[in-house]
C-alpha cells in the first residue's frame, strides 16, 4: 500500500450515550437511539439543521429481528432528507461507524455528521442469532465465550500468565464501571478471590470475567475544522481525530495467530504511524480497548504494541493499566461493564474522545491529551481503531 494522506481535519464535537441495562422496556429501538443522539447533540451544541449526514452502526439485524432497522427508524434518527448510511462490521461495527463518519468529514464533503450505534438485545435472542449453521464452517455452538475460550487458553499456555490476571482485569474494570453512571454492571466490592471462586463458564473464563448483554446506544457528532474551532471558541475542547485504521483478515487460514492476529498488529502499526506515535505506551494517556472477556486486556496490550509479545499480562499484573497506572485501560469500565454489542465499539471511541475533551466526569483521567479507541469483531478478524487528541494534529 502506498503512503496516503489522512485527509482533511475532523474532530469529535460531542458524544452521548444511554444508561446501559439488561432490558430497556420503557423505550423502542428508536427511543433508545434518540436518547443517545439528543445527548450528543446537546453536548456538541448543534441543532438538526446543522447535521449533514447520518451514519448508523449495529451488529447483526437478527439480534433484534428487524431487517435494516435504520430504514424504519429514519424519522427518529433525524435522517429524513439527509444521507443515511448503515455500517455492519460485526462486533467492531461501533468503531467502524465512527471511522466511516470521520471519512465523511475528511473527504471534504460534509461539515457535521451524526454517527449512532446501538443494540437492544432484549428484543430478541442474540444466542439464537449467532447459532444458525453456516455451510462448510465450524459452528460456534456455545456463543462468543465458547469461541474465544480456546484463544485465551492458547494465550495462557504460550505466555505462562498466572490465573489471577484475568480476575485482576475483571476487578479493575468493574471498579471503574462503578464510578461510571452509564455503566450496566457496577460491582464496587468485587475482589480477585471472589472472581476466582465464581462459576467456570467456558474454561478458563469464569462468570465474572465475561461481559453482560445490554440494551444501549451511543452517538457521536463529528465536525470539520471550522465546526471544531467554533466549539473551541466557546472554551470547550473537541477531540481531534489524529488517525484511524481498519483491518480485516479471514476467520481461518494456515498459520493464523488467534491470540495475536496479524490484522490487529497491522491496524495498530498503521494507526501509530498515521498518528505520529513512536512509543504508544508512553504517548497514550488513556486507552479504551474492546475487552469482552477479561483476558483480552493482556492479549490486546501486546497486539497493540503497548507491551512486548508475552509481556501483556505482566503489564496488567503490575497495575499499570489501573486508573492511577501509567496506561489507564478502560477507565469507563469498558465492555466488561456494558455490552450493547453494536454500540460497544463506538462507546470505546466516544469514551476516548471524552477523556481528551475533559468531559469524562467521575472517570476522567487527569490531564489526558491523547487517547485510543479500539474495537474488534467476528472471530477476532475485524479491527477498527482511532487516536484522538485534545490538540489538532500538527
Amino acid at each position, binding site marked *: 500500500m502506498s503512503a496516503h494522506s489522512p485527509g482533511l481535519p475532523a474532530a469529535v464535537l460531542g458524544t452521548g450515550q444511554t444508561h446501559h441495562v439488561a432490558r430497556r422496556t420503557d423505550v423502542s429501538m428508536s427511543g433508545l437511539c434518540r436518547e443517545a443522539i439528543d445527548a450528543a447533540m446537546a453536548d456538541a451544541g448543534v441543532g438538526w439543521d446543522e447535521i449533514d449526514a447520518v451514519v448508523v452502526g449495529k451488529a*447483526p*439485524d437478527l439480534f433484534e429481528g428487524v431487517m435494516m432497522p435504520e430504514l424504519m427508524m429514519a*424519522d427518529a434518527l433525524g435522517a429524513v*432528507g439527509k444521507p443515511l448510511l448503515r455500517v*455492519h462490521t460485526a462486533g467492531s461495527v461501533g468503531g467502524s461507524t465512527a471511522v466511516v463518519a470521520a471519512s*465523511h468529514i475528511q473527504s471534504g464533503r460534509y461539515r457535521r455528521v451524526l454517527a449512532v450505534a446501538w443494540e437492544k438485545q432484549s428484543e430478541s435472542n442474540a444466542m439464537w442469532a449467532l447459532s444458525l449453521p453456516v455451510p462448510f464452517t465450524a459452528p460456534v455452538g456455545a456463543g462468543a465465550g465458547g469461541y474465544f475460550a480456546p484463544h485465551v487458553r492458547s494465550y495462557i499456555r504460550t505466555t505462562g500468565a498466572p490465573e489471577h490476571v484475568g480476575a485482576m482485569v475483571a476487578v479493575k474494570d468493574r471498579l471503574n464501571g462503578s464510578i461510571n453512571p452509564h455503566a450496566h454492571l457496577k460491582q464496587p466490592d468485587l475482589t480477585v478471590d471472589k472472581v476466582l471462586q465464581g462459576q467456570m463458564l467456558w474454561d478458563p473464563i469464569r462468570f465474572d470475567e465475561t461481559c453482560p448483554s445490554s440494551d444501549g446506544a451511543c452517538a457521536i457528532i463529528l465536525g470539520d475544522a471550522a465546526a471544531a474551532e467554533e466549539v473551541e471558541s466557546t472554551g470547550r475542547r473537541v477531540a481531534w481525530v489524529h488517525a484511524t485504521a481498519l*483491518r480485516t483478515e479471514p476467520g481461518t487460514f494456515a498459520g493464523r495467530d488467534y491470540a495475536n492476529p496479524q490484522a490487529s498488529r497491522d491496524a495498530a502499526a498503521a494507526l501509530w504511524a498515521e498518528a505520529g506515535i513512536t512509543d504508544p505506551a508512553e504517548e497514550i494517556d488513556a486507552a479504551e480497548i474492546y475487552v469482552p472477556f477479561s483476558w483480552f486486556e493482556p492479549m490486546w496490550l501486546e497486539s497493540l504494541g503497548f507491551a512486548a509479545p508475552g509481556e501483556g499480562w505482566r503489564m496488567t499484573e503490575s497495575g499499570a493499566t489501573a486508573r492511577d497506572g501509567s496506561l489507564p485501560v478502560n477507565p469507563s469500565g469498558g465492555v466488561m461493564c456494558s455490552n450493547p454489542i453494536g454500540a460497544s465499539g463506538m462507546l470505546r471511541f466516544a469514551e476516548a474522545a471524552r477523556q481528551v475533551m475533559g468531559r469524562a466526569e467521575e472517570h476522567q483521567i487527569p490531564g489526558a491529551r491523547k487517547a485510543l479507541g479500539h474495537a474488534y469483531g467476528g472471530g477476532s478478524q475485524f479491527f477498527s481503531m482511532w487516536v484522538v487528541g485534545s490538540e489538532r494534529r500538527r
Partner: protein
Amino acid sequence: MTPTAPRDVAVVGFAHARHTESTFGTTNGVEMLAPVFAECYRQTGLDRTDIDFWCSGSCDYLAGRAFSFISAVDTIGAVPPISESHVEMDAAWAFFEAYLKIATGQADTALVYGFGKASASTDLDSAMALQLDPYTVAPLWPGRHHIAALQARAGIDAGTWSEGAMASVAARATGRDERELLAEPYVADPLRRHDCPPVTDGAGAIILASGDRARELVDTPAYVTGIEHIADSAEFGARDLTDSPSARAAAVRATRSSGDRPDLGGVTVAELHTQYTHQELLLRSALGIGDHVAVTPSGGSLLADPLFSAGLERIGYAANDVMEGRTERALAHATSGHLLQQNLICLLEGRPA
C-alpha cells in the same frame, strides 16, 4: 456541503455474475464473486494486493444468518490483512463509502462488491416485510408486491401514470407486446407479473481509483463528477408515494444544480434501479428525465433483480457506457428500502471534472 470531494475519483472496472433464478452456490456469494473479481482484475491489470480499500454490501436476512459478509471475505483471500468495511445495504452504498475513502486520500484504489441469493429464501415476502416497523406494520406481513401496489395505485388514482404506461415500460424492457401484457391477470392489483421484478441471485463488483491512478489503468475512466444519497420517511402515510423528493434532492446535489430541479444537461444514459414499472415513470418525472435520454438500456431490475447488488450494477452499467464511449455523461441511480425510501444518484463523465 459540496457534491464532490476535492480529489477526483473514477470507475475503472466493472463485472457482475450471470443473472440466474437460482444458484447452487452458498449464500455468502463466494462462488459468484470469485470469477467477478478475476474479471475486474483483468480489466484493470490490478491484483488483489494492489487494492487499498474494500467495501461490500449485502444483507444478513437475505442470507438467513448473522454475519453473512464475514465468509464473503474468503473470496478476497485477505492474507495479508486488508483495509475493509461493509454496509448492510445495496452495494451502491458501499460504492459511496469507498468513494469517500479515496476522496479523503486514505486510499488510491478500492474494490466494491455486493451479493445476494434471493432464491435461498423460501418466502421472500416475509423476509422483506421484516424491513417494516416491527411494532406496528411487520406483524401484518404484507407481501412485497402488495406494498408496491399501494404506490402504483396511488399514481394511477392521481393521474400521474396509467396501467398502459406501466406496460409500455415492461414492453421496452422485455421486447413483448404491450397489448398482450395488459391482457394478463393481476399479481397485486394494479401490478401484473411484468410490472414486478423476478427473483434473481447475483453478485457484482466495481473497481474505483483516484483520478491520477485511473488514468494509468484505463483509457477512459468514468469520473464520478457528483454523487449523493438521501433518505425519505419510512411512514407510507407520511409520504407522497407518487413522488420521490429524496431522489430529486440527491440529483440536485449530484448535478450541482443551482435550482430545485436536477441539471441533467448532457446526460444521454440513465440507469435507474426501478424494481417496478411504475417506479421508472415516477423517477423520470421526479428527476426530469426527457425522452432523449436512454433509460436503463441494460434492462434493469425488470429483467434481473439481484438484491443488494442491483444498485451497484446500475452504476457499473452507466460507467461502462462512459468507459466504452457510448456516452460522455451518464446518470446512475440506486434505491434501498420499500417504495424508493432511499435513493442514490451518481453522475459519471468521460472527462475529468
